[in-house]
């Protein structure tokens, strides 16, 4: 058992990612070389046998393969290694902690002072669990354990232990061994832990997402059963069951959020300002490359709208400019093409088809047109077809494209054909500016879906309805509120609605009701869908609390 453990340790512990990478690469290299040599040997033999011309024909297609060429200039020292960005992160317990440990030691900031060492302790995660049975790990841990962190970790672990029934005995065991392996103060702190018990309790729950997968891992380490498919099973990340409703104010209203963020001063203002000033210096070069039929593509963390705005105001004052907010969720490619055709070229007769329209634009456009697209990877522009059209536009002689991308997988939307049409020049314009404009259309979990807005729009639409229609709508709302507790409730059946409306003398026929419903559907007051048995189900797609408010309002002033 002991030896087995050790061997496993060696595998898990001592080989760093880079080493592994190097190992693999070198193996690959030798392999390739061998293959290459073999190829050449074979070829030589063949040359002996057959005539030269034969050899040449054979050579032509795979010429570059047998020379064993490898890209050298593409990868350099300064590059961010790919494995850092894309490597699999096995939920190794170790790894979840590492960022946490050094955090405390290096907080010389004065503001941090109020966080006394004790509070810091409490925050830790149960790293020391690893300690037992792992001489290597323990030595590492004691190194970091100089901070009171270890104590906190231990405390939390204790609570974790009580919280989870699983592997009870083993955990407590590990706890003790851990405390022993570490230094004394931790022990005394442990005794004081009982006072902070309540504190711990909360804290432990807060850190749960990290430690739970790790606990599993710790378990493995003890038993040393490492199987390949463990990777997939252990991927089921275990997170705590807390919801945001534990907070005093679970969600901020959209308006409040915007106001708060607007009032806030940007961190690192000067640095960001310097970055932006640097980018301004590049404008002349961008202009030059644009005129040379390149497209300028900006990437990097932070909103690039500001930079692009500046570019427009500084360089493109007297030019035709089309600015497109690609992040806007209801943008269509047709709008872009139409606005070029109608607004800029003022074509009297615009063909219906998109491609013909592009042809016309290409023929008619005689002056330079600059297209600025914020977020070329925006949700509506991502599709293959739309990218194709933009690429065609960018390829035109008089059209120059300046665009920005933000999504980490954005380059995947282009194939070689599109890339060669775009002919990008890439610029890193990391500005670390907040994405205020770009993110405002996102549904964030933390933002309250503005019920206020829905309510006002609901009542506005409602007031524009005829009395009969209002009553029909009220029937639906009532029905929905009555059934709101029922999880199996899918919606009001059309025929039920019909009969209740008929009984209230609101409609006389099926068709009249349908006409009313069309109006609701148009205003998005109602969603219609088919139930599994084929009947039509109607639902008001508004939160029940809002509906309640609405109902109260309506009944308040008839």
């Amino acid at each position, binding site marked *: 058992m002991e030896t087995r453990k050790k061997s496993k340790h060696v595998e898990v512990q001592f080989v760093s*990612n880079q080493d592994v990478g190097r190992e693999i690469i070198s193996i690959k290299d030798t392999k390739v070389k061998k293959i290459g040599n073999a190829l*050449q040997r074979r070829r030589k033999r063949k040359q002996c046998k057959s005539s030269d011309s034969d050899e040449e024909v054979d050579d*032509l297609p795979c*010429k570059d393969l047998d020379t064993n060429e490898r890209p050298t*200039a593409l990868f350099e020292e300064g590059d961010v290694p790919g*494995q850092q*960005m894309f490597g699999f*992160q096995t*939920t190794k317990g170790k790894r*979840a*902690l590492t*960022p*946490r440990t*050094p*955090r405390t030691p*290096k907080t010389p*900031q004065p503001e*941090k002072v109020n*966080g006394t060492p*004790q*509070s*810091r302790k409490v*925050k830790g995660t149960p790293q020391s669990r690893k300690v037992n049975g792992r001489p290597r790990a323990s030595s590492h841990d004691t190194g970091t354990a100089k901070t009171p962190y270890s104590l906190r970790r231990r405390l939390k672990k204790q609570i974790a232990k009580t919280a989870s029934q699983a592997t009870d005995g083993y955990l407590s065991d590990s706890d003790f061994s851990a405390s022993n392996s570490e230094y004394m103060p931790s022990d005394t702190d442990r005794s004081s832990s009982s006072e902070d018990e309540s504190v711990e309790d909360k804290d432990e729950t807060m850190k749960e*997402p990290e430690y739970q*997968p790790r606990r599993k891992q710790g378990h493995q380490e003890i038993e040393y059963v490492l199987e390949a498919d463990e990777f997939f099973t252990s991927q089921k990340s*275990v*997170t*705590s069951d*807390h919801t*945001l409703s534990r*907070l*005093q104010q679970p969600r*901020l209203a959209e308006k*409040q*959020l915007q106001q708060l*963020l607007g009032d*806030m001063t940007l*961190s690192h203002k000067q*640095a960001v300002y*310097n970055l932006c000033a640097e980018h301004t210096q590049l404008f002349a*070069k961008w202009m030059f*490359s644009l005129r040379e039929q390149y497209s300028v593509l900006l990437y*990097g*963390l932070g909103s690039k709208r500001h930079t692009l705005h500046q570019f427009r105001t500084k360089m493109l004052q007297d030019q035709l400019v089309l600015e497109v907010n690609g992040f806007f969720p209801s943008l269509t490619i047709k709008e872009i093409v139409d606005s070029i055709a109608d607004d800029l070229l003022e074509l009297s007769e615009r063909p219906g088809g998109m491609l013909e329209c592009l042809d016309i634009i290409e023929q008619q456009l005689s002056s330079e047109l600059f297209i600025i697209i914020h977020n070329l990877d925006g949700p509506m522009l991502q599709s293959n077809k739309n990218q194709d059209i933009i690429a065609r536009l960018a390829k035109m002689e008089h059209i120059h494209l300046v665009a920005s991308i*933000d999504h*980490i*997988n954005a*380059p995947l939307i282009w194939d*070689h054909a599109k890339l060669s049409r775009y002919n990008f*020049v*890439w610029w*890193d314009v*990391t500005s*670390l500016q*907040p*994405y205020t404009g770009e993110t405002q259309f*996102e549904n*964030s*979990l*933390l933002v309250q879906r503005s019920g206020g807005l829905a309510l006002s729009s609901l009542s506005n639409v409602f007031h524009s309805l005829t009395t009969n229609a209002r009553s029909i709508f009220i029937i639906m709302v009532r029905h929905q509120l009555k059934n709101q507790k029922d999880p199996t409730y899918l919606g009001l059946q059309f025929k039920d609605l019909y009969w209740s409306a008929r009984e209230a003398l609101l409609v006389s026929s099926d068709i009249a009701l349908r006409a009313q419903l069309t109006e609701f559907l148009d205003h998005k007051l109602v969603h219609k869908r088919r139930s599994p048995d084929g009947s039509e189900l109607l639902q008001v797609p508004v939160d029940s609390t809002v509906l309640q408010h609405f109902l109260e309002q309506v009944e308040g002033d008839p």
Partner: protein
Amino acid sequence: MNYNKVQRDDDLEETVKDNIKKNQYNFLTLSAWYKEQLRSKSPKKKSKNKPALEMDKDAALVVIIPNVEGFSPHILQNFILIASGYINSLPLVFVFGVATAVCALHRSLPYHVSSKLCNEVFHSQPSTAYLNQVLEKVVLTSTCPFQLDDKTFKLLTDIFLFYDLSVYGFIQHYKYCMMEHFFNCDHNVLCCSISELSQNIKSLSKEQLEELRQLPSFRRYVDTLPKKEKAPLLLDDHHFKEVLEELMTELHGYLLNLHTYLRCLHTLTASLPKSPLGKQLREVYNMAICCDISESPQFRECFQLLGFQSREELLDKLGKVLGFLESASSNMSVKVSHLKDVQEELSKYYTSIANMGIEATEQPLKSPSKIDIGENINRYQLKEKLLELSRKQKPLSAYEETRKNLLDYLAGSVFPQFLVPPTNVPFNEVFFFNNVARVKRHIVGTPRAAIHMALNNPHYYLECKCCKLDKTSSIIPSMPDICIVYKLHLECGRLINMYDWLQAFLAIVNPSELGEEQRDVAPEIQARFTRAVAELQFLGFIKPSKRKTDHVTRLTWGAS
């Protein structure tokens, strides 16, 4: 169906546009149009009616279908079937462009369709062949003064070979390097053809001359001069201009030599077994400009191998080399006298080898001279004896003698003299673009790496004192919010609990007295967290999950 067809034949639209609507296009119209075309026999026919492809008397109607894989097979099949019905009135010829393999065509066309076609397969060259042609005929010539240094050249060829195999892309990247070379760099106006040189030198301003003086290669050159010559060169603009013109002309001469002899070397060595110096001119070029090629082990290996060349092969290569020298010296714009000398010398070798005749090269196989082996000799002694015999130099035949002399001449005096890396030549910066770092990031974008860097180590961009990290994984409260939130999310598994995430964020930016859970969060901090999470979602690191309330899914597995 008809609609699709006519779209592809959209050249015809012009003629029929006026009287026929699009939805009335059909094959009958097409054949009517075709007949009319034939009848009118206008000398300038449609581009589709290529005169080269005339069949009998009638011109064939060629339909080019590029990228067959991109077409829906159904439409293609129907089109072919319908067209086959009109084959009597319309002599149609299809040209299918297939990007992958011929089987793509067979896959998309079932037998009953492909049997209507009479297939003939033409192969085009692989794109590397085109690249080599472009390089050899345009880029790597002495008439093109703009040259890339070894690193940039390697970068561009690597992008081609390992990334896109696109000659167009290569040319665009090359153009970008050229833009970079000339942009905001006025003195590079001297990177011109030799006829414009003196004109351009005259137009140089004082600042530009100063810039030229600052070039490292020129400084090195000045350092080698005796003291007396230094001062006027640095102070007297007029004198400097004269020297400049002289040196630039020399540089042109150098370029001519470099390319001519590179070609010679390439001809000699390309077909050697294993081709140590590379099979392509670009490989030889790359090596020659990065280091002293005549000192390299590959060069020596090549000449060793050349030492075993047969007479025919050597003659053949030598003939080609002479051809190069001939053409170089005939249309040279720079006076390079030694080219002539080398040419004469080599042609002497050529004639001598050629005149040697068969009998000289193939020496009559001497019967192995009887070796006096004593009667009583043991195995060890025999071995010694044989070794001794093998060490003895065999007398060289006349051919071998000449070959040796020729190779010694080439390797000893010709190549080492002319194939020197450009870094030693004054003002090489004017011709050789040497700043790969300036172009690389713009030719090959690294958006993911930039975001990764900015999130993990914002100090790299911000250059502030507060965010300096000694370990990439550590988190400091002074970092931008998005970085903190990102680093915290790296610690999580596939699902992230928003509440816990917020608490972890709070523990960093606003640690409470006892580190307890903070249920009452200051709205500012909550707003900051909200924004940071929204930004991460916008960047594509997370997305909302419906699996569990208030959870988000992690979309990356990158380790920190």
